């Protein structure tokens, strides 16, 4: 149990990433593909926070506990993840805007049909 728990969070992150990639590659709908990309982003959050976790630790926020009274987890990876989430959402919005533009120009949401149009 504990040997598995040592690597399980990393494996979950890897699994989520591969699942997202599979969805991205087999998607027949560009909006669905954008959703799959946000699933891929999720894997990076899980990986970063898993690296920074410490058993028995608590959040490095000292508004309600005394500094030094309890062990704390790593704040650096948390700061990276935090900004990543908000920026990720705006990037999703940018991709959705591109999708709307593609639909306007080519009238289709299917990436395969788009390729036929160009060729």
């Amino acid at each position: 149990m504990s040997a598995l728990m040592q690597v399980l969070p990393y494996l979950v992150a890897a699994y989520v990433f591969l699942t997202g990639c599979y969805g991205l590659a087999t998607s027949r709908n560009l909006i669905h593909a954008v959703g799959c990309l946000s699933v891929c982003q999720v894997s990076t959050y899980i990986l970063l926070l898993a690296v920074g976790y410490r058993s028995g630790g608590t959040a490095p926020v000292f508004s309600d506990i005394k500094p030094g009274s309890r062990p704390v987890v790593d704040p650096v990876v948390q700061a990276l993840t935090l900004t990543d989430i908000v920026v990720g959402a705006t990037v999703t919005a940018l991709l959705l805007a591109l999708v709307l533009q593609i639909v306007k120009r080519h009238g289709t949401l299917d990436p395969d049909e788009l390729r036929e149009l160009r060729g």
Partner: protein
Amino acid sequence: MSRRLRLWLLAVGGAGLAALLAAACLDLPGFGGRAHPYGTRAVRASLARHTANTVASVNFDQRAYDTLGEMSILFAAVLGCVVLLRQARDEHRERPRPAEVARPVRRYALLVVPVALVCGLYVIAHGQLSPGGGFQGGVVAATALHLLYLGADYRALERVRPLGTFETVDALSVCAYLVLGLAGVLAATAFLANTLLPYGTFDTLSSGGTVPLLNAAVGIEVASAVVVLLANFLDQAVEIEEGNGG
């Protein structure tokens, strides 16, 4: 390339990537380990500068230059959306008919909008003390405003949302972040260095030197960026029609 061949290629590549990722996972330091050298040093630095929330200290003090990068990505993404979603020459606007929403839902929306705005401001203002900060609070405040569309009417939202003002405020808050950084240079230290203001008393709203100011700038930027973003999507989804109309 046929669809079948592409799937085979994906399977082979995915299997290889999965094997490499699994090998990498097994080599990482175990989950929940005790050794976090960067974390320990970041906590010490944050406490030395009287910032109770270490994450805010990392974001707006120790790695403030990184946050400037994040802000510019945010700004660029919103700019891209505005350009992509603007009204084209062959499109026209059509006023949506006023919506009739069930009365309890409308009342709930009108009641919760102020509560949610206050919550967003609370999350921004307490960023350097308790969990929260500009990034989270900004999104909350901006999303809360759109309850007016969801629970009432698009026109109600348009009335309280002067878009031009929000676009200007967005740009101004990015500038404010830069100016605060340059103030550090003028005070003869370094760009974005937190040596400008006194650190204050630990665990109070004004503690942490420039952290609360940078936090507020980010909060305003994120809030107005999300409002502008959603406004463009809403215009496309609700008002803008194809063809030149009449």
